[in-house]
């Protein structure tokens, strides 16, 4: 019997399956290394694990990448226009942190399911611990390299 039915969410092997990781490493990388780096990694991993919800994950990545600068612009505009007092600035940072956490948490939950399926069908994820540590250690240097953009990217 040669023919076997294919279930719609079965991951198909891809050229970059070898770089697949458990999304928990990307979640940690986002916390220690910066959200921007984590979002890009989530996008790559969506292809690596052949995630069934890849489209929505890529949309979340896009939302995360565009959302942070957008919130900066909106809040900056409100501050400059005198709609918000200067005393609120420390609290306003929390809006950006909350937004970034929301995006990476949603992405983590979504990819976690796909990763389980990837593992169920014999896929093996790489250990991302060293990358997470490296990103955490190198974060100040990366921030220096990015200059003013670091607030938006990390």
């Amino acid at each position, binding site marked *: *019997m040669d*023919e*076997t*039915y*294919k*279930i*719609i*969410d079965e991951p198909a092997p891809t050229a970059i399956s070898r770089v697949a990781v458990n999304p928990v490493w990307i979640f940690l990388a986002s916390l220690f290394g910066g959200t921007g780096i984590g979002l890009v990694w989530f996008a790559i991993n969506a292809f690596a694990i052949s995630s*069934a*919800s890849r489209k929505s994950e890529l949309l979340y990545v896009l939302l995360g990448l565009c959302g942070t600068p957008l919130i900066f612009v909106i809040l900056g505009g409100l501050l400059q226009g005198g709609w918000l007092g200067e005393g609120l600035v*420390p*609290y306003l940072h*929390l809006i950006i*942190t*909350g937004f970034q*956490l*929301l995006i990476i*948490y*949603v992405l983590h*939950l979504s990819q976690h*399911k796909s990763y389980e*399926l990837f593992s*169920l069908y014999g896929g093996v994820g790489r250990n991302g611990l060293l990358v997470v540590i490296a990103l955490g250690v190198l974060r100040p240097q990366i921030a220096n390299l990015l200059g003013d953009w670091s607030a938006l990217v990390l």
Partner: protein
Amino acid sequence: MSDPSDLQVQALMRRASSYLAQSNTPAAIEILKQVLGVNPNLAAPHTLLAFLLLDQNRLHAARHEAALGLELDPESDYSHRGMGAVCVAQRKFKLAREHFQQAITLDPEDPDNRVALADLYNLEGDLKQAKSELQQALVLDPENAESLVALARLCLRQGALGEAARFAKEALEAEPEHAAALVVQGHVHLRQGNLEAARDHAIWVLSTDPSRREALLLMAHVKARSNPFIGLWWRFSVWLGEIGNQRTILVLLGAYLAQRVASLYAHLNGMPMTSDIISYLWLAVCIYSWVGPGLFHNVVKKELESVKLRDF
């Protein structure tokens, strides 16, 4: 003379059923894939596959398979029951009710259709309707173990422990070793404070099927009750599981932001110690939520290892 592919399909379906009886979901799925490889136009294997995928929490694929089953045989009560189950998992209760009611219309004599509808009512909190459906299911088949177990679960939820125990016992008389009935009996013991008996019931089921989810849950409840430190995490985890992913995200994010705002407010208003205390408390919660699952799994794992050593 029968078509060879029909015979092949029948043989495969028998093998799939055998794996199902052993709760071996992955093996049953593989066999169903072979069945559908031979003939993809069979409704029942698609629907059965949908049920199995639901068991693996693969909602998207389950919906696809249930839709295929329904498309291939819209007059089958089983197809509607499959789609209803998918709708329940998606928390589309109204649509689920329509499918279950359609299943009952198509085959009013099948008690399983009424049990499915009763489970939905139970989930929605309409215990009166749930009980009514189960009583009708029992009229159709007074010895149907599934109906009796569902009724026992309902009584358990209502706190009627005596009735729950009676229905679970009747289910076991109809079908000895019925795992779900044993688990209900275990929960009755747990509610009565008899942890040892509850644990024995969990072990009884797990000794024949170590992956039985409801028995693992019972065991987890027992362990959580006997260890308050781990029990706190378990109860919180169960609660998060009940409210769903979206609300879980909101709760966790809300808690994080609330502590950050509180800590920041204290810091900016000349209360550095209060700010530090809030931050350290949050750190403690984070460490606990990180360590808690590991400790909990170790405790349950140890208990399960002891199951292998016991002779039943």
